[in-house]
């Protein structure tokens, strides 16, 4: 399409420029019943998977129908959601912190009708457009990142792996049969954008090869001291080298024995790429949580050191995830999060029950705090 101006004048970029206005006030978008009862809610119930009811002091009720989304969506999909909101909810809707979409209505009949409508909508390929669920002790949406769709440092894909896991565990999204909520998160590299370090189950993209050094360009494109300082293990040092054409350039030397392939240096310096088709894959972490319900918040811990990238369906990843989820669902007590369960039975039992191989990769060796993760007691099970 030919260029269509919005009214912006490139010759006077600062004229009529509006800035620092911030986001719109959320109150502008509240449904009337929410606005009226704001701060006056008495209690709530989960009517059925995906449907909540909140009771206000005034006696008002609001029914919330929660549906899964792919997070990465088109404008036509958003319009579809808007059309539903217009038909049932007076044009109001909201997105949750796990990127589900919630539609609010004022009666149970409306909620049931809405749930039916949402569940009936499918894409041409057959996938649900708005599968209803994600409430209570279920597996709700997966918090994930950009992957091969948009980022330049990933070791795996996000949208792909998420679709695979949610397909595998779809039953758990639309029911509430878990001992407690099971949060899953996906991050495509160790930067861990999102919630991987504090989720019950986390998929993290991982490299297994040190960066390649583009000596000819490095000094032109990178601020060398930044790359050196970005390394958590001190594996990088500045060096000089002679190129084949006889020119001496400043560059970086990588001590491969100290490199653990975090990719931080590539983030700082475009001349140190390390993505690799065979080398890259996935690390599975388990047992994190952010709530302080009963036990304090926990970090997730590495349970599987490496799962290869197998696009487009990642069968090994799907199999291992299902095994862990099923074992947890069968063994844990009510209200026990995955981390609570693993700590109660002991990690040696966790590995045994989930049939995971315990490798030396799982033993912490990063600086002084590693010591505290080793066992300094005779309390263990054979």
């Amino acid at each position, binding site marked *: 399409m030919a260029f269509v101006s919005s009214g912006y004048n490139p010759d006077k970029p*600062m004229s009529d420029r509006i800035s620092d206005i911030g986001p719109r006030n959320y109150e502008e978008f509240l449904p009337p019943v929410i606005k009226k009862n704001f701060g006056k809610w008495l209690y709530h119930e989960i009517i059925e998977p995906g449907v909540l009811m909140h009771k206000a002091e005034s006696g008002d009720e609001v029914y919330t129908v929660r549906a899964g989304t792919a997070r990465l969506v088109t404008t036509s999909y958003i319009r579809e959601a808007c059309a539903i909101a217009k038909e049932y909810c007076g044009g109001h809707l909201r997105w949750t912190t796990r990127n589900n979409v919630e539609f609010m209505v004022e009666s149970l009949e409306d909620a049931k009708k809405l749930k039916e409508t949402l569940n009936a909508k499918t894409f041409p390929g057959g996938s649900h457009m708005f599968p209803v669920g994600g409430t209570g002790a279920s597996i709700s949406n997966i918090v994930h990142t950009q992957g091969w769709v948009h980022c330049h440092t990933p070791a795996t894909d996000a949208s792909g792996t998420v679709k695979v896991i949610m397909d595998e565990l779809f039953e758990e999204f639309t029911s509430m049969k878990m001992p407690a909520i099971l949060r899953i998160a996906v991050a495509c590299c160790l930067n861990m954008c999102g919630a991987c370090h504090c989720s019950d189950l986390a998929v993290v993209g991982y490299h297994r090869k040190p960066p390649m050094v583009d000596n000819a360009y490095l000094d*032109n494109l990178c601020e060398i*001291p*930044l790359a050196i300082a970005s390394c958590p293990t001190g594996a990088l040092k500045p060096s000089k080298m002679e190129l084949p054409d006889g020119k001496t350039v400043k560059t970086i030397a990588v001590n491969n024995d100290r490199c653990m392939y975090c990719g931080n240096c590539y983030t700082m310096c475009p001349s140190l790429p390390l993505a690799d088709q065979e080398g890259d894959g996935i690390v599975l972490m388990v047992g994190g949580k952010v709530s302080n319900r009963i036990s304090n918040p926990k970090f997730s811990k590495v349970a599987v050191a490496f799962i290869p990238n197998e696009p487009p369906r990642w069968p090994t990843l799907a199999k291992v995830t299902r095994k862990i989820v099923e074992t947890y669902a069968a063994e844990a007590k009510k209200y026990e999060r995955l981390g609570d369960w693993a700590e109660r039975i002991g990690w040696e039992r966790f590995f045994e029950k989930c049939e995971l191989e315990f490798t030396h990769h799982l033993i912490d060796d990063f600086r002084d705090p590693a010591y505290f993760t080793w066992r300094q007691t005779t309390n263990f099970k054979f």
Partner: protein
Amino acid sequence: MPSVEFQGKNFDIDEDGFLQRFEDWCPEWVDYVKDSEGIKDLTDEHNKVIEFLQDYYKKNGIAPMVRILSKVTGYKLKHIYELFPSGPGKGACKMAGLPKPTGCV
């Protein structure tokens, strides 16, 4: 690698318009960039910022932190934005011929 020609000089640049080699910098580069960075006339204040960025880069191999830039030039961040509407990174560093800022930007 795209290159541009301006007032008889050739510059290799990347897709964001940053110089590929710091040594290629010359006063013509500033003239070439200023239009795309929304700067009408170059003042002494502009030159002072550019000069400091280049000195710091030659001496330390990195671009200065924003607070160092402010402290040494005496210009508050607000004033730096008035001079360079795209900010110290995209605006001033690009005009000074420094490498493109990296990290989660």
